[in-house]
């Protein structure tokens, strides 16, 4: 573009009289590698405008829809989970077979027998407690010992 033209445009620009198209022309002229030396100071101005046109808003905007919407879906999900539980839970609730019952009973019986036999061993060894009873009886003679002492203090 002719330099003369650019100078005229710049004058119009600074008076606020340029059209958008003319301003576009100025921007493209000053985005060139080399511009007339005496117009050098305009370069960063138009470059700044061009750079700033591109800045973007990148943050999310949390647009809230109605709350009830969420609750409906949560309840639907809960019902689905429940049905799932009923459907797939049922095989585990079936009665065990007779064999299994017998086996469980035998195991239980064995265990109980073991417990009872050990318990018996335990009680037999508690027998010595009887002899302890005898011991306490024989300590009674101490009472008799008390008698003479009492006599002395009389």
């Amino acid at each position: 573009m002719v330099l003369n033209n650019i100078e005229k445009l710049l004058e119009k620009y600074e008076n606020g009289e340029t059209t958008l198209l003319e301003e576009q022309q100025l921007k493209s002229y000053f985005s060139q590698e080399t511009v007339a030396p005496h117009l050098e100071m305009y370069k960063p101005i138009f470059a700044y405008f061009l750079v700033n046109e591109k800045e973007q808003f990148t943050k999310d905007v949390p647009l809230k829809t109605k709350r009830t919407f969420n609750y409906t879906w949560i309840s639907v999900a809960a019902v689905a989970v429940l049905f799932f539980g009923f459907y797939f839970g049922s095989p585990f609730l079936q009665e065990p077979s007779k064999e299994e019952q017998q086996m469980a009973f035998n195991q239980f019986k064995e265990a109980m027998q073991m417990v009872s036999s050990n318990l018996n061993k335990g009680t037999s060894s508690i027998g010595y407690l009887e002899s302890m009873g005898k011991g306490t009886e024989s300590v009674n003679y101490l009472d008799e010992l008390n008698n003479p002492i009492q006599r002395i203090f009389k």
Partner: protein
Amino acid sequence: MTQPQIMTQTEFLHIVMPFKDKVFRLAKRLLVSREEAEDATQEVLLKLWNNKAKMSEYKNVEAFSMTMTKNFCLDKLKSKQAQNLKIVHSNYQDHTVSVQKQVELNDSLDWVGRIIEDLPEQQKMVIQLRDIEQYDYDEIAKMLDMNPTAIRVALSRARKTIREKLTNTHSYGIK
């Protein structure tokens, strides 16, 4: 709120998509900090979403949103200024750039940004809406509630100031 939905999220996003970046950039021009501009944009978009029932009544949703953004940010700045009167030390942003920082600021694009930052709010907005977003004067007039002549005057002042300051700070034109 129990009424059936008038507009779905997708429909809403479809309307908002084309200008959400413009809302953000205007907010950033005024509030400077990126985070605050993001918050402001969220706020504006949420307000739109909450009033989506009325959205069909607006003739121009985009212009309406830009006006909303402008008002929101100017309110924010006002309350900030009020706070700064109480807390003297936290002068918002760095209008007084330290000497060391000035040295670092070799990038002339940064300088342009800084010069615009120092402009009065109205000029900032006019520059943003015209030179960056390329709206025509009628649209800007609607958004900022100004008449087109006032817009031209503000724009002319802003453009001249930017060029002059840039010439001063950066030895341009000395050659």
